[in-house]
């Protein structure tokens, strides 16, 4: 098991290196391998769509562990994951309750209306436990809280518009700082890399929104975009042009998508002729529009988002 964890962290070291971490971080990762007390992981899902989990399962790397199966089977001690756990009912709840020394991964927002009854992830001894209560209790016990996705980090889609169930982000609902890996969904490598750092007990350098600077602190997406300055698309269905006029959010977010790309690098949003939706941003999905939110509601009179 420890050898497997070593393989896992080694890979993550390589992934981190590709994201700009230096030799010192690699040494730290190596030394962390020797620690048999590395924390386990609890993964909870609240008000969301399970898309962050599916994205996590899309993880792929040129070195070991090569994919999600490798991560799950040979690495972190994932005590509970609602989509993957074999057990059900009281037995898994008992394991969640007795967990100590764990990283709490939260996917989805936290509904607070109806005394939390809008999301009940399990029962304990006949009593329904709200997601709000579960996250509050477990985040207080956790070594670290990792918000996986924009809903957990900032509310995101789950808190948009009228937000009838009073969905809050995990930091809002718990009053505890978290490490935020935003994105709707986040890129799998962002999730795995950040989790690896937390498993080592590393203190991550975070931006003002709790996001790892190594991932979210780069240049504006626009400045990395191969289509920037290559003619301006005025309508959809045009490839290889700048999509600012369609409401592209690349000017206001700093995402490594243009370099990391998606799904084993087969493509990414702008390569598919779509403007950046800005899904990593705390303003996502905007008050009334995804693509007209630059500079506040209505944008700056640009980016009508359609013909």
């Amino acid at each position, binding site marked *: 098991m420890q050898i497997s964890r070593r393989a896992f962290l080694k890979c993550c070291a390589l992934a981190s290196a590709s994201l700009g971490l230096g030799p010192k971080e690699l040494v730290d990762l190596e030394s962390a391998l020797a620690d048999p007390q590395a924390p386990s992981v609890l993964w909870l899902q609240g008000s969301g*769509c399970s898309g962050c989990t*599916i994205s996590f*399962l899309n993880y792929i790397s040129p070195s070991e562990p090569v994919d999600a199966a490798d991560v799950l089977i040979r690495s972190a001690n994932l005590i509970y994951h609602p*989509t993957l756990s*074999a057990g059900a009912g009281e037995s898994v709840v008992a394991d969640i309750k007795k967990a100590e020394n764990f990283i709490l991964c939260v996917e989805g927002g936290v509904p607070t209306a109806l005394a939390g009854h809008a999301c009940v992830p399990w*029962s304990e001894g006949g009593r329904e436990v709200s997601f709000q209560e579960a996250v509050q209790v477990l985040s207080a016990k956790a070594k670290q809280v990792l918000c996986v996705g924009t809903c957990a980090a900032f509310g995101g*889609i789950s808190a948009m518009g009228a937000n009838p169930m009073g969905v809050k982000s995990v930091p809002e609902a718990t009053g505890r700082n978290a490490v935020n890996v935003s994105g709707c969904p986040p890129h799998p490598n962002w999730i795995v890399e950040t989790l690896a750092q937390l498993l080592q007990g590393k203190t991550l350098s975070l931006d003002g929104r709790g996001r790892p600077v190594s991932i979210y602190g780069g240049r504006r997406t626009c400045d990395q975009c191969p289509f920037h300055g290559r003619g301006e698309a005025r309508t959809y269905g045009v*490839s290889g042009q700048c999509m600012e006029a369609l409401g592209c959010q690349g000017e206001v977010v700093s995402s490594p998508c243009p370099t990391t790309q998606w799904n084993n690098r087969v*493509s*990414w949003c702008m390569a598919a002729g779509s403007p950046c939706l800005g899904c990593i941003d705390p303003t996502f999905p905007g008050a009334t529009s995804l693509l007209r939110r630059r500079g506040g509601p209505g944008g700056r009179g640009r980016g009508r988002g359609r013909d």
Partner: protein
Amino acid sequence: MPTVVTIDPVTRLEGHLRVDVTVDLVDGKPQVVEARVSGTSFRGFETMLVGRDPSEAPHLTQRICGVCSVPHGVAAAMALENAAQVSIPENARILRNLVMGANFIQSHILHFYHLSLLDYVGGPGMPPWEPQWNVDRRFGSEASARLVEHYKAALKAVRQANEMAAVFAGRQPHSPAFIPGGFTNVPTADQIAEFRKYCGIITDFVRSVYVPDVDLVASQYPDYDELGRGYGNLLVFGGFALDTAGKGLLFAAGRVGAGTDEIQPVNLEALAEQVACSWYDNGSSACHPSAGATQAVYPKDGAYSWIKAPRYEGQPCETGPLARMTIGGHYRQGISVHDRHRARAAETLKLAEILPMWLAQVEPDGAVYTPYTVPTDAEAAGLTEAPRGALGHWLRIRQGKIAHYQVVTPTCWNGSPRDDQQKPGPMEKALVGTPVADARQPVEVLRVIHSFDPCLACAVHVCRPARPGRVVIF
């Protein structure tokens, strides 16, 4: 002496589900005599769309479900296209089908191996596969080890199917490529070649691993060819348009009533959703849509689920791959736990084999988008099929904004609670008669539940289905 057994959480599905079964002796053997299936989460998604730009609905509604995001994008785009009366280019239709086909394939493989298989085979002896209910295991160690290897191989196949979809769609899940008017991505010869490469890999997995494994599990658990039948009412909205007019469909719309083989047309006027046992205001429970808003009410006497109870002509209906394959004439073996798995696998193979043919119809560098104007006032629906069954989006536009939006998902049908007449939902009905050997580890109940592939992320924000144009939301 009847005993109530509660499973909460039911794991290995999307979203939050609780099941309460009453177990009693029937002919001296303990079995389920009554079941209650509860969706334990509510999102209010449709309300949150009000006031927004209709053209962005495909982006937003894909976030209803991270597993089957693509059909939501398709249904939302179709709704606005119907409202704006715009036809999409042939290339866009084909690209949508290709991406949605890949999405179905990843969902079905994920479902069998990662959400269902561990009801029959012990997983790797470590978390998150420990603890597990280690009961009624009928495979020897060699076969078990092989199936666990296939569990891992299937993770790879799921990832590759997502990559296949992303070749055209930009990324998975939550592709930005689905827009009213067509598709954002202009297909290139390189993309077509890349997609074709994935087709070969995926088809090989489905044909040589997935389909045989489904048969292998069925052969060791023949009792589940008899269990989990339910009502026998099947419903399909139809999906995968074979022409831009939407006349031809790979999966035909239709309905089969219990005890008959006759396939009847689907009349959308015959849909209604009831809320006697759901946490919504009873005043909104009706066969006829009203203009009033539906309100969440909690607590409420007699209610136990956030899912409403959609009914077709007052009847609960099963929707999903078995319904599609049966109504399409591709599968006629019966209705049971294994029939659902076999039909799902057969559908996966059918899609895997047809994708290369559709791919050959893609015109490289051809048009993918038709410009359109969002109508000021309009009402329309977008109906399609999702991996788990019939999916409908109903849209009303006022002053160029979304005034009402409504989504009716497959799990609303399958996972519905009792209705106003206290008639159980399809999963609840299917559970009755299921033997339970050990009330502390009722794995038999999980087998029936999982055969439906419930997706609560989809089901729990849904409001009342109405006929197109008469939309009621909460």
